[in-house]
């Protein structure tokens, strides 16, 4: 029997239905995708190739498609990028501006000797040079290696060493982290500082490059990259070993363009805001490539999170398409509904979310306060583009991942035999048939690990899910120990290794812990060496140690000092037991436990 509270909720839901159906009707008739079922039928990626005037064997350069082509389509004077900085300063760039600026950066890199397929790291906040530099690197056929600017020196070093990066483009505020490790990196030849203070001397290997003071390059010979030419190297974390460099190619554009058009439903008059940092894949696939190749106006806010600042930004720039993350959405929920009333947000037309599963409460909340539900999109660094998603106009089941994008063959397989389940509702591993344009081509210098992701003809993203009778996917969890905190993957191995470098720590084990805003946060269990006392000051010292070495994301939010850690008889620490305790789950089989 329903109690009074749930009766009220049911009544509110029923009252809400006409709006829900109205939204579905309007979205399905006005959206680019139109009918999902019709699009799935006989789908071929040539749909995207035709729209982009690309034929097999042609030159395909993402930098050209995102700038020159849009100008040639008559949109040279259209605003491409509206950028707002931390103190409210604003810069605007037309498509012709970003064409010329990316040429200018490309010419600078070419002049210092950067060659096609050289790795050029972008280590910056979300400043215009990050977006323009990314396109400039691609235009000369080099490989863009964006790294999150909050990375500490150890995280930075591991990724630069693996890629044998030749040049780093950075800001003066981040240059000290590069300087700390430069002696260990003979392969790095250039550290390019985009805002160097001319009163100060440049350090070893350092060059100053100021975009606004550089001669503008209008005519530029773009390197004739082909479909399989490498474009972007993003790093992602796994359960074991060091972070892996995910290699993408220029042909990824075919997926990124079409998914941005059909899922994010980018319309010509949209003002689009992708809140992701280009240090991560969403920030490049949809914060640069998807947006600019569709010729829309996008805006960027380079400032820390605050609910008020975000709503003000939407109101000020009349944002109509908003692509964000569950962590941000839950932070906005936490800030409350009252604050929303201070802003005029009727400009919002379409909302989507990525990074981690979007819980049903967040979907229902957004429908209530914005009149639009955030549509969950599922994909990862390795897939390069959206795989399973909710579409505009589709019936939304709050909490569901939605259905595969047309052309994506996705299923759930048995974790032992890697064969698709025939019954609905069974939990197994998500599996995707390889071959879509944006799929990673390999892990950089690590083909062996790449091959392990392919089983029985399927690519396995490492997530568990079920499929219901209507074909909707329902996320269950990761199939490994990787921690998804705020939509970013953190390797427990990397954190454990960093912890062991702290002088006080003898042993470490790192697991995820549930968190309302970030879904999961990092929790560490440690044992101390003799002579060290477990106290609050030591805990803080360890937290800061990891933060500076790796990043704030990897910093344990809680450290538990233990006398010993659970181990197998062969001495391997059993993270599984510690994790089960954190999540209130059954501990399971402990027969291999050392002293059970």
């Amino acid at each position, binding site marked *: 029997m329903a109690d009074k509270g749930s009766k009220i909720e049911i009544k509110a839901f029923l009252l809400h239905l006409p709006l829900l159906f109205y939204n579905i009707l309007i979205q399905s008739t006005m959206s680019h995708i139109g009918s999902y079922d019709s699009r799935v039928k006989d789908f071929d990626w040539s749909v995207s190739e035709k729209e982009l005037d690309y034929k097999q064997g042609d030159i395909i350069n993402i930098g050209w498609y995102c700038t020159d082509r849009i100008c040639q389509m008559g949109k040279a004077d259209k605003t491409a990028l509206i950028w707002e900085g931390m103190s409210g300063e604003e810069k605007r760039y037309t498509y012709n501006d970003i064409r010329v600026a990316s040429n200018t950066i490309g010419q600078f890199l070419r002049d210092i000797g950067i060659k096609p397929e050289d790795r050029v790291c972008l280590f910056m906040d979300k400043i215009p040079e990050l977006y323009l530099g990314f396109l400039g690197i691609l235009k000369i056929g080099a490989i863009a290696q964006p790294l999150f600017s909050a990375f500490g020196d150890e995280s930075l070093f591991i990724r630069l060493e693996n890629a044998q990066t030749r040049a780093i483009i950075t800001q003066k505020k981040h240059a000290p982290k590069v300087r700390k490790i430069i002696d260990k990196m003979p392969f790095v030849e250039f550290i390019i500082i985009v805002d160097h203070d001319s009163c100060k001397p440049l350090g070893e290997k350092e060059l100053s490059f100021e975009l606004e003071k550089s001669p503008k390059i209008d005519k530029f010979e773009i390197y004739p990259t082909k479909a399989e030419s490498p474009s972007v190297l993003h790093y992602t974390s796994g359960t074991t070993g060091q972070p892996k460099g995910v290699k993408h190619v220029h042909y990824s554009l075919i997926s990124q363009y079409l998914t941005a058009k059909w899922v994010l439903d980018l319309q010509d008059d949209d003002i689009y805001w992708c809140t992701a940092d280009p240090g991560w894949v969403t920030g490049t696939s949809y914060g640069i490539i998807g947006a600019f190749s569709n010729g829309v106006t996008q805006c960027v806010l380079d400032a*820390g999170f*605050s*609910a008020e600042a975000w709503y003000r930004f939407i109101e000020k720039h009349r944002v109509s398409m908003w692509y964000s993350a569950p962590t941000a959405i839950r*932070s906005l929920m936490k800030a409350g509904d009252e604050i929303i009333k201070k802003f005029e947000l009727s400009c919002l037309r379409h909302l989507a979310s990525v990074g981690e599963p979007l819980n049903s409460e967040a979907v229902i909340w957004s429908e209530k306060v914005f009149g639009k539900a955030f549509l969950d999109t599922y994909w990862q660094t390795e897939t390069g583009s959206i795989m399973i998603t909710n579409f505009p106009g589709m019936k939304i089941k709050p909490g569901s991942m939605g259905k595969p994008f047309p052309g994506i063959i996705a299923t759930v397989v048995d974790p032992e035999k890697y064969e698709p389940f025939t019954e609905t509702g069974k939990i197994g591993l998500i599996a995707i048939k390889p071959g879509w344009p944006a799929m990673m081509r390999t892990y950089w210098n690590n083909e062996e690990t790449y091959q392990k992701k392919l089983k029985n003809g399927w690519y396995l993203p490492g997530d568990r899910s079920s499929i219901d009778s209507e074909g909707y996917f329902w996320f269950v969890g990761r199939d490994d120990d990787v921690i998804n905190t705020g939509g970013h993957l953190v390797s427990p191995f990397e954190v454990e290794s960093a912890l062991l470098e702290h002088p006080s720590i003898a042993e470490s084990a790192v697991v995820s812990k549930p968190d309302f805003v970030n879904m999961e946060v990092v929790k560490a269990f440690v044992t101390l060496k003799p002579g060290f006392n477990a106290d*609050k000051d030591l805990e*803080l010292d360890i937290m800061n140690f990891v933060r500076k070495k790796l990043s704030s994301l990897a*910093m344990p939010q809680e450290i538990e000092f233990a006398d010993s850690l659970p181990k197998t008889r062969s001495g391997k620490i059993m993270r599984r037991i510690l994790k089960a305790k954190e999540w209130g789950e059954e501990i399971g089989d402990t027969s291999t436990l050392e002293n059970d």
Partner: protein
Amino acid sequence: MEDMKEIIKNYVIKEYVEDDTVIGFDTPLISGGIVDSFSMVSLKRFLENKYNISIPDDKATPEAFDSVNKIVKLVNEFIK
């Protein structure tokens, strides 16, 4: 009060500033990108250890941590 302001400001500079960025008592820390939302946890832990207080999670908002002056105001609410 002045001592507390200086202590917190110096801690922020020591722990969260890599270059020679000048930090004042009203410099935006969170919205200014100097301290990110994950790092706020370590700053909160420092304040709790230093002043022997406990700041509830719902009070530890990005707005309440957005400058040294705002942090001082927050800490003073919990000092007995």
